[in-house]
């Protein structure tokens, strides 16, 4: 019986091709905009999330502006931080801008960053060629450096820079490695940077205070405990002066980004669903017209022995057909739009299963909700009146 009804509904939709198509259009637009919006938002946010994750979720960043008397962190603070439970390592950063000279060619305003071995052991995909800084470099205050891809290009012109000597603020450093080119829309790229052991940076940058420290954790689940331990250490170090430091936990930032993503998805999805509802009303309208048009047919079917629930099922199927078809086309169209947009803005396109299910669920639901009233109307038609209206 279901199969027969399916055939009948299909036949009828095919017969009214243009009308079926136009009715479907509402659903197509609704579903495609939901799919496109949600997919694009998710793709963008995934890009941002992975960008943030690349900074490392296993680390806590401390920004210390310090007090007038102590304008940042010193070695003993680093030592204390590294002694906190579950801390895998501490990587301080001293930054400043200075002039770099190689073989007579000079580059001004280069960002020089004093780092330690922990930074290199904890950060993946950092080195292009050569080696990173090791413990001995730090302890012995070796005059070695790694250079960013832009620096390598501008000063060495394609020559292998490793083993060459570079004058950084007048002091000769040996290049031990080059850094991988990184693209980062947050602007934190190393392409224009020179990295040296932080123990040698004081002399160049003129300040022994460290304003930024990354604390790496053994277990990111313990970030709360570690964060509070860091607070204790820093409060002692800065005499409990307010605003002397801030602690940035990547984990927290990621979760707030995720919250924003979810909210944004819901919001945009919600706006797009309005068009789905409008599409549903379109289906209801067409089905009501169809019931009126086919009054005689309904009467005849009833006279021939069609039960009311069968008539109802047939009309309901037509509505669900329309909306599911609309949903499928909308899904394809929406995915296509998302693919194009993602390619244009350079984020990775990924269609999630839940989005697809959402689209189908939604369109089937719309079909049933807006199809039920016309279907009931059809099933309740009195066969005598229906047959009379020739």
């Amino acid at each position, binding site marked *: 019986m279901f199969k027969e009804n399916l055939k009948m509904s299909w036949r*009828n939709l095919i017969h009214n091709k243009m009308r079926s198509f136009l009715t479907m259009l509402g659903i197509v637009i609704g579903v495609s905009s939901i799919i496109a919006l949600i997919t694009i938002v998710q793709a963008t946010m995934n890009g941002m999330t992975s960008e943030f994750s690349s900074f490392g979720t296993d680390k806590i960043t401390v920004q210390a502006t310090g007090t007038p008397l102590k304008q940042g962190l010193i070695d003993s603070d680093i030592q204390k931080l590294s002694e906190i439970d579950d801390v895998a390592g501490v990587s301080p950063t001293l930054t400043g801008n200075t002039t770099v000279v190689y073989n007579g060619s000079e580059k001004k305003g280069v960002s020089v960053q004093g780092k330690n071995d922990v930074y290199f052991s904890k950060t993946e995909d950092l080195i292009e060629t050569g080696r990173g800084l090791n413990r001995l470099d730090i302890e012995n205050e070796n005059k070695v450096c790694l250079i960013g891809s832009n620096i390598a290009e501008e000063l060495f012109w394609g020559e292998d820079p490793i083993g060459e000597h570079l004058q950084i603020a007048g002091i000769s450093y040996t290049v031990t490695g080059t850094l991988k080119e990184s693209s980062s829309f947050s602007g934190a790229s190393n392409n224009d940077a020179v990295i040296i052991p932080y123990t040698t940076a004081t002399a160049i940058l003129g300040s022994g205070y460290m304003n930024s420290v990354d604390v790496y954790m053994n277990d990111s689940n313990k970030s709360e405990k570690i964060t509070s331990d860091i607070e204790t250490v820093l409060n002692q170090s800065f005499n409990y002066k307010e605003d002397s430091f801030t602690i940035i936990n990547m984990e927290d930032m990621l979760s707030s980004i995720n919250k924003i993503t979810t909210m944004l998805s819901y919001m945009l999805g919600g706006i797009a669903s309005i068009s789905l509802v409008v599409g549903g009303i379109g289906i209801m309208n067409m089905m009501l017209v169809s019931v009126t048009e086919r009054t005689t047919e309904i009467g005849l079917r009833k006279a021939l*022995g069609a*039960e009311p629930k069968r008539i109802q099922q047939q009309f309901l199927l037509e509505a669900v057909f329309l909306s599911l078809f609309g949903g499928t086309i909308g899904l394809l169209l929406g995915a296509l739009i998302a693919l194009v947009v993602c390619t244009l803005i350079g984020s990775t396109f990924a269609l999630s299963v839940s989005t697809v299910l959402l689209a189908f669920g939604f369109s089937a639901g719309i079909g049933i909700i807006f199809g039920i009233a016309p279907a009931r109307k059809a099933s309740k038609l009195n066969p005598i009146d229906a*047959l009379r209206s020739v």
Partner: protein
Amino acid sequence: MSEQILNMTGIIKTYQMGDDDQVVLDNISLTVYRGDFVAILGPSGSGKSTLMNMIGCLDTPTRGQYILSQQKVDELDESELASIRNKEVGFVFQQFQLLPRLSAIQNVELPLVYAGVPEKTRKNRAWKILERVGLGEKIHHRPNQLSGGQQQRVAIARAMVTEPTILLADEPTGALDQRTGQQIMQLFHELHEEGKTIIMITHDVEIAKNASRIVHILDGKLREEFAHV
């Protein structure tokens, strides 16, 4: 006498017209036996359409008892009525009432679809009955590719395909020219001779004379006369 297949006693049907109840069928009693060919003859407004709806289980009486094939029709609900229409009654309408988008055979199959007969059996039975009414060559034609007489034959085939207890025809020649009408009446005669029970509603005395029994209806009341055949 042979078996009673239809028995109406004291059927009253009233319709609400504003504040008044209008009596359309007034205490009607009618018995039809297996193999009868009954004409119900009456002018328009006499209540003959209401009576036909009642006989065809499309409508239920306000009062009175109606038994069709040993089932009390007046006590059935809508879906039971649908099922009894499907099994016991074959409708033939004045305007044929074929579905324009379906071929002749698909139209004939329709009651079998609702009876839940599997597709293969359905096709087979529909085809055989179309052959019987002389349309074996035209089973895939759409109604608009058939003449009026041929369309009515398809409709008759559709009415007979479920092998119903009664064939109920409402002005079956009303939309046909005289010659074609006579051919259709000829078909009814043949079916009658094969033992089918036929009830025909008409306003035309000449057409009614084809039946073996004529029942007059006027102002909702029945009066029977035994025909000459």
